[in-house]
């Protein structure tokens, strides 16, 4: 099919590269360099979507990021993306796009019935209608949610790659239009590190759509010269198709670069999108401006377009958006549309000027071409539904209505500076009477707006702005600028001022006059909201939803605010626009996540023996970032069966465990003894060299923070072990105290967790196994002691201690030799029937013995006394938390206290966290509220005890041994007996008591 609205020549498209694409199933063609919007217009497709609330037919309004109507669903399956602006989507071969928010089709949309009912659906309709009865809201909500939203989110995981990139520069220039290019050139010529970020596929900004001249040649020739110069400079980085979307404090900005469109095949192995995290010493915002629409009845009909967009589709893409055009304007600039389109051979029916006179240079040029110019008009409406057919206008003084047949209306009410990024960083805005819009007030520290983004209307002014700002920015970074002042000749006729007040001339006519196209907000909605008291910009916005669509009201907000001022009968200067917040343009979740998805989602820490564990079928659990073997099931074995087998091996024979993840901190210095005593509530200074002791660390409030073993390596040298999860926080805690509270203590703390790997050999036969492999007398080692030794030739620290409550050793070796030692020990243990055991068995074994686990028996509100450790507190020395332990509340006898809990049925394992009650209750419905007097903290089936065991915290527990309590589990009360917190083995003895 031929593109009936494509001009014979012209535009920046590559006519040697035709592309096929599909829109709503129709096969169409375009060219490389087209956007979807320009290609659709070339094919005569104006109707591209349905509006959100009333499902009104809508066409392309703009040409870039401002587009409120032409939102499409692109690609299929997992790659599909909703709400893509057709004006920014670069055409590619095989692109598939479809319109949104219509059923069954774009042309026949049953949702359009909402349009007929619109008089019953004013602003606040949902708030007013679905208030009553309140209990029906869940039903309403379900129905409303089905109707809400425009496109469809993909159902499957995104198969594309994304990444992040940090970048630093002296000067960041946002926007590669005339002002941005000038700023980048000036800064770069001074030697600055420059990043030039631009959201379009090529540099030039608005110049791409104009027929301007700079320095006596075409403006685009100047652009390519500037780009060639910039690209040749090694300190300049040009980022095309990169939208700077967030501007934060201290020169931090984020931008999203698009390499491939949704569904576009990947030929080069680059990500689909890249999120840039830019730290700029100076920022020059040259983001340009957005054209302001006019407000008149049915101003949303397809075929009504912004005036610049109409000429830019012609100049840049070689597309005539209509064959009989009416230009409607409140400023001189839109006369260019008539001139440019006429030059391309497009018929111009008339220029309709809302101002009382039109005598400037541009109107004269238009008249000279024989085009009719009507002045002092107001637009009373249009004819045509799916496409505009005629414009209806009359003199603002009244009189006959004239109908001008047309198929394109190009409208303009001047330009709105893109102050979004300036405002995001808390730049203040002020109303400019002349331009009728908000412009930046002054400058922010290190941030300046230039060109159209600050309201500079002329090209020459934009260039001057840019050159000056770029040079100043570079100089502020300490770079000596030798750039001479730039004054580039441009051909710009004097323009008569905009009459922004006149654009509401027709507002009194009533009818459906849209101010927010995407969210279907009309002039009447704004007035109604003000009558109902929502007369502050923030309230008005939320009540009417004006500016809350995915286009964020880029075209409509200014008209909403002007109407608000009018309705309040106040000057615009009294209106404060709502604050712009990031993101300027929506970011995909893929771009936010970057490369950190799947296996890279979060860092994973593995011990040197990890591969051995994996090879033996270990099931891993996450402990912080560590992967720890939880258990090693044999084929078909359940968790419980594996844990039983591992526990019994520890109790009866020998088993091996990887405890490398425990934190290890080397503490040394002349004051190490004093320091370690203050860190633990237990006395560590009494330790002899080569001896170890279990200790608790408390916070200032006296609550247990971490626990572990401290070993004395020398007179002034300790090794502190921590829990796996607590390693980093204990180390930071120790440093904090040393640096902020006790700088007088001469102590150095160094984390050695990663240097050592640690192996636990547990069980009655561990001595037999290890004895022949070491060069020291193990028998001579007392319990809780440490010796330097060689184990199977590997230099090691051998600890005689165990967390499982039975005989055992722990061996610490440099991590690089741990795998070798592990396999040696395992090999040597085979004749003793050695097996590996995991963290689950470790938990059961320590619970049998009543050893606490931080995070199970403690929760940040548990003191040493609560766990029965009063005897180990050294209250005659200073330590962190000591004073708090004397608080009356911490001395109460009815505090929750650690006890053992046994169920009647030996195979009944209580769930951890179950609440404990004094009295049984039959059913939750019949019972009066009962006091919860405690809870289960750890609970397991113990193969060694041949029954279930549990630990719990029970109010006044120390006085309740032998009492019967009730655990509330799944709606029934289970009888439990309170015991001491250590358990008898099957033979009736305390398990290694």
């Amino acid at each position, binding site marked *: 099919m031929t593109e009936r609205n494509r001009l014979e020549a012209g535009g920046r498209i590559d006519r040697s590269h035709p592309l096929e694409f599909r829109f709503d199933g129709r096969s169409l063609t375009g060219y490389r360099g087209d956007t979807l919007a320009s290609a659709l217009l070339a094919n005569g497709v104006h109707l591209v979507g349905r509006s959100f609330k009333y499902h009104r037919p809508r066409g392309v309004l703009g040409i870039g990021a401002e587009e409120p109507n032409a939102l499409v669903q692109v690609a299929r399956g997992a790659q599909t993306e909703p709400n893509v602006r057709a004006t920014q989507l670069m055409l590619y071969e095989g692109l598939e796009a479809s319109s949104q928010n219509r059923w069954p089709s774009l042309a026949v949309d049953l949702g359009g019935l909402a349009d007929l009912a619109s008089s019953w659906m004013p602003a606040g309709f949902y708030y007013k209608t679905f208030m009553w009865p309140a209990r029906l809201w869940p039903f309403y909500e379900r129905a409303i949610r089905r109707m809400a939203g425009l496109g469809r989110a993909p159902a499957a995981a995104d198969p594309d790659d994304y990444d*992040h990139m940090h970048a630093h520069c002296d000067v960041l220039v946002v926007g590669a239009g005339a002002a941005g290019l000038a700023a980048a050139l000036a800064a770069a010529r001074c030697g600055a590190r420059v990043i030039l970020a631009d959201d379009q596929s090529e540099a030039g900004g608005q110049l791409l759509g104009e027929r301007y001249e700079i320095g006596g040649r075409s403006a685009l020739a100047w652009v390519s010269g500037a780009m060639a110069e910039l690209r040749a400079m090694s300190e300049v980085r040009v980022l095309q198709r990169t939208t700077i979307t967030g501007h934060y404090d201290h020169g931090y900005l984020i931008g999203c670069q698009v390499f491939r469109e949704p569904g576009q095949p990947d030929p080069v192995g680059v990500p689909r999108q890249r999120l840039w995290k830019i*730290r700029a010493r100076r920022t020059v915002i040259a983001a340009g401006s957005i054209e302001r629409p006019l407000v008149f009845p049915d101003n949303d009909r397809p075929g009504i377009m912004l005036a610049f967009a109409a000429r830019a589709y012609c100049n840049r893409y070689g597309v005539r958006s209509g064959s009989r055009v009416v230009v409607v304007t409140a400023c001189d600039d839109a006369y260019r549309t008539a001139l440019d389109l006429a030059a391309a051979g497009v018929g111009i029916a008339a220029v309709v000027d809302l101002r009382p006179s039109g005598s400037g240079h541009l109107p004269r040029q238009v008249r000279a071409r024989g085009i009719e110019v009507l002045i002092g008009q107001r637009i009373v409406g249009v004819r045509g539904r799916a496409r505009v057919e005629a414009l209806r206008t009359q003199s603002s003084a009244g009189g006959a209505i004239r109908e001008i047949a047309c198929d394109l209306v190009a409208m303009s009410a001047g330009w709105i500076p893109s102050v979004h990024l300036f405002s995001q960083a808390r730049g203040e805005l002020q109303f400019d009477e002349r331009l009728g819009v908000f412009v930046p007030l002054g400058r922010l520290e290190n941030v300046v707006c230039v060109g159209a983004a600050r309201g500079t209307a002329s090209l020459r002014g934009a260039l001057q702005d840019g050159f000056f700002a770029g040079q100043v920015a570079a100089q502020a970074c300490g770079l000596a600028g030798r750039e001479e002042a730039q004054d580039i000749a441009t051909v710009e006729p004097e323009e008569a001022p905009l009459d922004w007040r006149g654009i509401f001339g027709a507002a009194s006519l009533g009818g459906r006059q849209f101010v927010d196209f995407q969210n279907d907000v009309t002039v009447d909605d704004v007035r109604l909201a003000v009558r109902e008291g929502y007369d502050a910009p923030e309230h008005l916005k939320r009540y009417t939803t004006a500016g809350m669509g995915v286009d964020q009201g880029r075209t409509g907000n200014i008209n909403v605010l002007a109407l608000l001022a009018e309705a309040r009968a106040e000057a615009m200067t009294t209106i404060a626009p709502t604050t712009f917040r990031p993101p300027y343009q929506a970011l995909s979740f893929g771009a936010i996540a970057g*490369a950190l998805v799947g296996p890279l989602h979060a860092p994973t820490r593995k011990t040197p023996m990890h591969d051995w564990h994996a090879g033996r079928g270990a099931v891993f659990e996450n402990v912080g970032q560590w992967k720890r073997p939880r258990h090693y099931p044999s084929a078909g074995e359940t968790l419980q069966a594996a844990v039983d087998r591992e526990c019994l091996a520890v109790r009866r024979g020998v088993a091996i465990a990887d405890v490398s993840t425990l934190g290890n901190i080397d503490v040394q210095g002349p004051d190490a003894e004093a320091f370690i005593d203050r860190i633990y509530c237990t006395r560590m200074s009494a330790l002899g060299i080569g001896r170890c002791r279990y200790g608790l660390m408390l916070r200032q409030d006296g609550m247990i923070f971490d626990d572990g073993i401290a070993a004395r390596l020398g007179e002034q040298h300790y090794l502190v072990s921590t829990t796996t999860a607590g390693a980093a926080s204990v180390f930071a805690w120790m440093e904090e105290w040393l640096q902020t509270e006790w700088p007088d203590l001469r102590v150095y703390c160094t984390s050695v967790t990663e240097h050592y790997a640690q192996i636990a050999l547990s069980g009655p036969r561990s001595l037999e196994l290890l004895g022949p492999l070491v060069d020291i007398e193990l028998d001579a080692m007392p319990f809780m002691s440490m010796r330097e030794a060689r184990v199977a030739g590997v230099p090691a620290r051998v600890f005689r201690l165990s967390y499982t409550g039975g005989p055992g050793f722990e061996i610490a070796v440099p991590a690089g030799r741990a795998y070798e030692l592990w396999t040696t020990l395992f090999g040597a243990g085979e004749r003793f029937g050695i097996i590996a055991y995991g963290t689950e068995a470790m938990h059961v074994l320590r619970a049998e013995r009543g050893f606490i686990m931080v995070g199970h028996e403690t929760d940040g509100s548990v003191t040493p006394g609560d766990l029965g450790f009063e005897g180990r507190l050294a209250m005659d020395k200073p330590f962190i938390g000591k004073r708090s332990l004397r608080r009356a509340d911490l001395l109460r006898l009815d505090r929750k206290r650690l006890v053992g809990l046994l169920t009647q049925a030996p195979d009944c394992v209580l769930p951890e966290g179950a609440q404990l009650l004094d009295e049984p209750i039959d059913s939750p419905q019949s019972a009066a509220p009962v006091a919860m007097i405690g809870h289960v903290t750890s609970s397991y089936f113990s193969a060694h005890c041949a029954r279930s065991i549990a630990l719990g915290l029970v109010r006044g527990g120390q006085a309740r041994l032998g009492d019967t309590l009730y655990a509330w589990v799944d709606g029934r009360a289970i009888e439990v007996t309170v015991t001491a917190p250590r358990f008898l083995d099957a033979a009736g003895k305390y398990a290694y008591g």
Partner: protein
Amino acid sequence: MSGERTAIVERGSRTSIVVRGDARDVRFVRAMAAATGLEPPVAPGTTAHHLLDAVLWLGPDEWLVVSETQPGHALASRMQQALQGLHAAVIDVSDARVVYAVTGAHARDVLAKGCALDLHPRAFSLGQCASSLLAEVPVLIHQRSAEPCFELYVARSVGEYVRAWLRAAVREHLHASGGSSP
């Protein structure tokens, strides 16, 4: 900048000794020089090096002595002896870290995907070092040569993760450069 192919090289573990001490104490500086042949640098983020040995600044009173020629225990005990009697600490952590080198024309771009530091020659010169994060992993970065070559010291336990991350980050530079992306 050379057009050298961008590559990730695994350099395994390396003799690394943490030294704590007071660089204002001339006895400490002399003892360090005697034991390692290098004086501890005092400016933040700087290093001193001699052939294949180097001292990396980690903090106002903390350095990492690294060597590709001497075993850790020998170097550590020589340093311990030299520093005897001073309030100083010498801790052998040779097995704590593994080293990756990122080299070639796009080395900075590869690192910039996960590291917020400015590694541009104007901000991070040859021989400089810095502790930072690379893709959420603590990392010590040392620019070994102007090639450029950046060495990354990361905890042994996250070595595999960092390797996988680096492989993903370098992937686009292994294709013939298209010239469109920076």
